[in-house]
């Protein structure tokens, strides 16, 4: 039925737009890892924190942690130089959704090291989820 098809598409778009699945995966993982006595209350607490931390309305990758960032860096730095180029760095930020269009990233001529990459990502992520 056409009506069913379009509503399904609507629903999928909604999920993607708000990154619901990633959020739910993150919440489930946290619950299973911490195993609080009262799961509902704990979930409410995390969601409240998220709500406060949300600066703009745009989706952001709170589901990444340090090992992911390192892995990402290693993938980009295929020759194992220890640095990535500025273009790669900008693309990575865009993938993570951390690169607001109006911010101007200056290319200071030096390549980006892992530490710089990590600190930049951390800076742009909401502090509550460091």
């Amino acid at each position, binding site marked *: 039925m056409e009506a069913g098809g379009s509503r399904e598409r*609507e*629903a999928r778009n*909604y*999920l993607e737009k*708000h990154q*619901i699945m990633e*959020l*739910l995966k993150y*919440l*489930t*993982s946290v*619950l*299973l*890892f911490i*195993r609080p006595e009262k*799961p*509902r209350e704990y*979930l*409410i607490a995390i*969601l*409240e924190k*998220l*709500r406060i931390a*949300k600066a703009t309305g745009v989706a952001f990758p709170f589901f990444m*942690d340090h*090992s*992911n960032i390192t*892995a990402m860096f290693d993938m980009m730095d295929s020759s194992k130089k220890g640095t990535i180029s500025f273009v790669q760095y900008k693309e990575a930020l865009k993938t993570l959704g951390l690169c607001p269009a109006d911010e101007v990233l200056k290319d200071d001529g030096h390549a980006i090291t892992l530490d710089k990459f990590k600190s930049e990502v951390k800076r742009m992520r909401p502090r509550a989820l460091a």
Partner: protein
Amino acid sequence: MDATTAPHHIPPEMSQYGEENHIFEIMQNMLEQLLIHQPKDPILFMINHLQLDNDNVPKIVILGPPASGKTTIAMWLCKHLNSNLLTVENLIAKEFSSLAAAARKHYQINKRVPSMQLVRLIQDRVSEEDCVRRGWILDGIPETREQALMIQTVGITPRHVIVLSAPDTVLIERNLGKRIDPQTGEIYHTTFDWPSESEIQDRLIVPVGISELETAGKLLEYHRNIVRIFPSYPKILKVISADQPCVDVFYQALTYVQTNHRSNAPFTPRVLLCGPMGSGKSLQAALLAQKYSLVNVCCGQLLKEAVADKSKFGEVIQPFFEKDMAEYKLQEGGALGSLPCNAVPGTARMLLPDSLIMKVLSERLNQQDCIQKGWVLHGFPRDLDQALMMDSLGYKPNRVFFLNVPFDSVLERLTLRRTDPITGERYHLMYKPPPTTEIQDRLLQNPKDAEEHVKFKMDLFYRNAAELEEFYGQALTINGDQDPYTVFEYIESGIINPLPQKVP
């Protein structure tokens, strides 16, 4: 979580926590609500949803032909579950609502409410605070497929749908005896449900439209409609026969609405089979292990394997076994045949300390294949102390079954067992008799299958059974006195279906 390190060894505590707290179901419900309402601010919506905590409130639809008793059942369920009853009548009787007033006018003229208005009324009612907190029971709605689809479109989905059914002739006759109490609105019947107080009896009135012809007309329309409503609620629908006493119908309905449906949650079965010797535990364990790829952990077998492997546990255990073997040899002076695998020699069990058994068992249950695939345990624990020890070490089964078999059946199953000393083949004089008399002549019986020994073991089991049953509160009892595949089906359905909720 980083997916690049593989494979993940998920600690069993996680899956246990997930099962106990129904994490999957919480998340699933939240996702459903998000998709239905698609709020602009999902996080705020989720916070509110979690705070409501109304995943398990009753959301029931009761349908049925006229005179099937659905209003009575709906009212009783309401009272019992402390929920809200929604009928066409009480929806349009709502005050302070222009929508309801319009619906009333329509009803007075045409004797029915247009579907659009009805669904709007339902939508308003269901979003009211008391329905959100205590659930709702729809009586006789949806009447048609259009209404069913409209209700679904606005996001109202019942969790249980009950359809009452009875032969038409019964219903026509029943309808003739219908009486209504004008004060309370309760429905009585001249034959089946006559009120005891005479003052109620005096004020009962005969409702309109119960003549045979009118009932037949209504039934025709009902049958036309109900057939097209069925496909809207495929997995949650249950048909209950209304051609039985009211109390029985009510009891069936109540049991049904209190069961949860099978969920898609990941589930690693950790099954414990308890029962006296000869109840079929080993057989069922083997069947389960084969069908669901669980690890079959038989306590006695485990200990024997330890001895045979000459592992460090084996060396500690062996003296207990040897002492026992010597006793047997002296007693019988003959071949032992193959020992049934789930019996540690009776006297040895009293000597073999629980802590030792527990250590061997822990070693097995901690192995990766047990954690990942789940296990079926039988032959342990046999009394409360062992159960407490197992529990304290963290091995909590998520399904416990008690296999009940009467003593005579056990005797029949065990005392007729025989073994052929030359081929090693095992026979049973009743269920699997030996093919030739030559074989039959040379068959021997295992001393453990002798009647006195069986009786001794049964007594031993039943002495401890009561405590075990109390300890494993959610255990399911199964009649083991049937053919193995029937018992297996019962066990299967016990594992697959969610555990029954205890009636509050």
